[in-house]
């Protein structure tokens, strides 16, 4: 900044001096002009030093304007030169996800932060210090130059019942790289405190080859690898604000944990009724013995209990699951005893919603199919069944369009020439058999996407997404006289279509996850902290904090010069051309009052 203004001052002074030392031949209009005829002509390009008021010269103003425009053009794009004063900016990113509640991980992180600040005390005094906490979101807590203030804020951070999003760390690093070197708080060091190992994708671009191979963040199948400081290999290099040095501080020791990891509803195929619930329990490390699972009913009474058998020589990760059948609607609670250090997955609460029949608007002329859990309803139906002769309504209700049916088995087979892979629509279908069940010669319009198409253009199935609809060749042939192929194929096609339509909507949920807006676990509202992999407390190192990093100040790196906007360059050219034209042809006398006004503050400069 000082250099810029110094340069600006020098240029301005140069222009001023040029206007004081080189008298330009000013044009002036005089009534007494005729009396100048006999005067000697002016000497050309006189450079005689002459103290005069430069502000009385019109060309000074456009020249200053052009100068200011030029400086403005190059100022924002000019990267600062390497600073003579080294810069130190440290950004602490502290993990406060649920797994940091295990043991003394949060305390360890805070102590480690304090130790780093103590070790680098002379250098961090006055440096730019920034503290952010992250779990599923990042929250920037403080930006200060006082380490004690930073630590006071850090001490107030406590874990929240949320998962860990390590992409936030990568995003923070990108912010540092993308930040302008002239930003008020340039970051040279990024220090991350977390119990998570460094993700494989977190590789420094400039030193990817020299960086040790990254640790896999998937569920470990063996003893977790010791997570090194991510940039120890280049810690001795001088960091810069555009490529900050990164220290990954892995806190806490691996501890075993047992907890619920999945609770999934299983829905009836032709309705949205929850018929079963699958419960999964995962053990990380050696589980306690005995380990007991207990289910409590809506009334609080114990409904079931079971001891979970684990292996004598357990692998690092074991999974146990159980399916709960025919649970009536209500809120249930499940526990694992005994508890462990990570408590968020030891007790869960789920809500079985009251089962409702599927409301079907049956507009097909053939009588109603008596399917369990189906209920005829024309207002707000979950499914609509219409004939292919009926126009498709333009709304969002899933619609099954039923074609004219199938031909008698005497015809020659219709070879399938095109089919669209769809796990639900084509489930359990044998296409060789389908080719013998020939739809009648009616095809849906071209805005349908065929799923099964024969060589004579016969269509068994077609679909469209907006509005959601399935075209099926016919109703299930449930007549006892019907041959097996027709019975099977027509039934599968029809009910696969129904499943496809009614399972487009997400299945009913048994619980909700904690979120940054509601980070507290609430068993009454079935709000749980079962975030994926958050309960894997084995994933951490044991010697990660053995060495405290030394934070070296850095200098700023100049950015490459970018091309300034062309319209500004054009403006400069116009101003320069205008100045030249006015110098050649004379400044309009109408401007003289303006010149007097501009030069009024400088009249005292005029020599007497």
């Amino acid at each position, binding site marked *: 900044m000082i250099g810029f203004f110094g340069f600006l001052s020098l240029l301005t002074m140069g222009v001023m001096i040029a206007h004081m030392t080189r008298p330009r*031949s000013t044009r*002036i209009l*005089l009534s007494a002009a005729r009396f100048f005829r006999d005067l000697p002509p002016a000497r050309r390009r006189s450079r005689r030093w002459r103290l005069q008021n430069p502000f009385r010269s019109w060309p000074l103003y456009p020249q200053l304007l052009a100068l200011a425009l030029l400086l403005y053009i190059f100022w924002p794009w000019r990267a600062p030169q390497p600073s003579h004063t080294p810069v130190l900016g440290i950004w602490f990113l502290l993990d406060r996800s649920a797994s940091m509640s295990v043991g003394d991980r949060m305390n360890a992180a805070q102590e480690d932060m304090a130790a780093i600040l103590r070790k680098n005390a002379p250098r961090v005094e006055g440096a730019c210090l920034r503290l952010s906490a992250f779990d599923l979101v990042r929250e920037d807590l403080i930006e200060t130059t006082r380490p004690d203030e930073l630590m006071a804020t850090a001490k107030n951070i406590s874990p929240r019942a949320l998962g860990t999003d390590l992409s936030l760390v990568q995003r923070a690093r990108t912010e540092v790289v993308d930040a302008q070197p002239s930003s008020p708080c340039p970051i040279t060091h990024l220090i991350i405190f977390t119990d998570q190992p460094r993700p494989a994708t977190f590789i420094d671009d400039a030193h990817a080859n020299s960086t040790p191979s990254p640790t896999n963040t998937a569920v470990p199948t063996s003893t977790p690898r010791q997570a090194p400081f991510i940039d120890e290999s280049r810690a001795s290099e001088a960091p810069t604000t555009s490529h900050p040095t990164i220290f990954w501080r892995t806190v806490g020791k691996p501890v075993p944990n047992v907890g619920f990891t999945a609770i999934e509803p299983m829905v009836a195929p032709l309705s949205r009724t929850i018929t079963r619930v699958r419960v999964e329990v995962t053990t990380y490390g050696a589980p306690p013995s005995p380990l007991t699972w207990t289910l409590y009913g809506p009334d609080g009474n114990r409904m079931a209990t079971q001891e979970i058998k684990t292996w004598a020589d357990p692998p690092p990760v074991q999974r146990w699951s159980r399916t709960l059948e025919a649970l009536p609607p209500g809120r249930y609670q499940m526990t694992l005893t005994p508890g462990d250090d990570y408590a968020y997955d030891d007790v869960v609460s789920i809500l079985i919603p009251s089962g409702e029949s599927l409301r079907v608007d049956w507009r097909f002329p053939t009588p109603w199919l008596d399917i369990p859990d189906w209920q005829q309803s024309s207002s707000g139906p979950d499914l609509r069944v219409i004939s292919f002769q009926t126009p498709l309504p333009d709304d969002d209700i899933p619609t099954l369009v039923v074609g004219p049916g199938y031909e008698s088995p005497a015809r020659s087979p219709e070879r399938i020439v095109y089919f669209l892979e769809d796990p639900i629509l084509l489930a359990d279908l044998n296409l060789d058999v389908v080719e013998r069940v020939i739809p009648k010669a009616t095809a849906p319009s071209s805005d349908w996407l065929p799923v099964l198409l024969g060589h004579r253009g016969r269509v068994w199935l077609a679909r469209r997404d907006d509005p959601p609809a399935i075209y099926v060749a016919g109703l299930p042939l449930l007549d006892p006289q019907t041959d097996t192929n027709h019975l099977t194929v027509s039934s599968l096609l029809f009910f696969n279509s129904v499943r496809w339509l009614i399972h487009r909507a997400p299945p009913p949920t048994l619980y909700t996850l904690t979120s940054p807006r509601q980070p507290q676990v609430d068993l009454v509202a079935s709000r749980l902290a079962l975030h994926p992999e958050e309960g894997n407390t084995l994933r951490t190192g044991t010697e990660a904090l053995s060495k405290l990093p030394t934070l070296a100040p850095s200098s700023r790196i100049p950015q490459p010069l970018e091309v300034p906007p062309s319209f500004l360059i054009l403006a400069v050219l116009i101003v320069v051309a205008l100045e030249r034209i006015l110098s050649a042809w004379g400044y309009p006398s109408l401007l003289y009052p303006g010149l007097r006004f501009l030069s009024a503050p400088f009249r005292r400069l005029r020599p007497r």
Partner: protein
Amino acid sequence: MKLTPPSWRPFPWRAGELDAYRIRAWRRARYAGSGSHLTRRRGQSLEFRDFVPYTPGDDVRYIDWRASLRYRSQNDLLVRQFQAEERMTFIISLDAGPTMWLPQALPKLLVAWWLAQTMAWIALSFEERVYLHLLFGEKEKPMVLAHPAQRRHLSQHFSRWAERIRPTDSLNLAPLYPLLKPATVWIIITDLYFADSPMADARLSAQATSLARLLKETRRGYRWNLWIDLDSWPFERKQLEEGAYRIEGPGLREPPPAYEISATALAAIQQRIDAMKASFITESDLPATDVSHWRWPTEHPSAEAFFRRQFMTDAILEQLFQRTP
């Protein structure tokens, strides 16, 4: 270089100001002891009232030579005054040449136009006849104003007169000859820059020589000639500092030549202008008391303020209106 006439700004007098000026001039003349004849009314009779010393502009036909020889010296003539007096005639000759269109900050032509208008207004108040004459023009006839009622539309009359202004070098004296009768005051408003001769061996230009000759002749015929010298050189000189300038203006070639301006050069120009004016005065036999110099202020002036101040303090013009009852 293309010059344009100045914009004709409104008459710079407020209502009643010129009446006050006229009454003040009249009172001063009364206290000067010229006698009761100053209060006489105009009439058509030729009844003798008094002898008064001759003042320029008096009709020479009324000089009483015998009484003058008897009572006074030859240079101090006595004029007979009558109850009814011949109406005086004001001929206002305006130089509207290109040099009068400058300086642009305060054009001389604008001041001359205001002055002519002011004098016409006062003269019409005294029921005198006024001829408005352009000093340069192609046989441009003077415009006559003869009735006091014409004061109410004086601005329109002058606007029409201003429309006649054309850039020309031909001196327009021929239409004046029949008008320069006895009891005529001829007022010439000019900067006289046209008098500068392009010939090195001539002191005055041909136009200035012709004008000076006519002035001399009319003065011999006891007409009163006044020259209002509009001198803008002090203002223009102030614009020039030492250094190189491209000077442009009437009388210089195009493109404008560059001159090295110095104090010596400026003094030489001043001297040349003074010499030219002195030469003209000599040639035209104008007494110094009949030349009024209106010198432009050195700073950028307010045109109205400059004109009002100059007019109010001009002793020669005051004398002119004192003798006009």
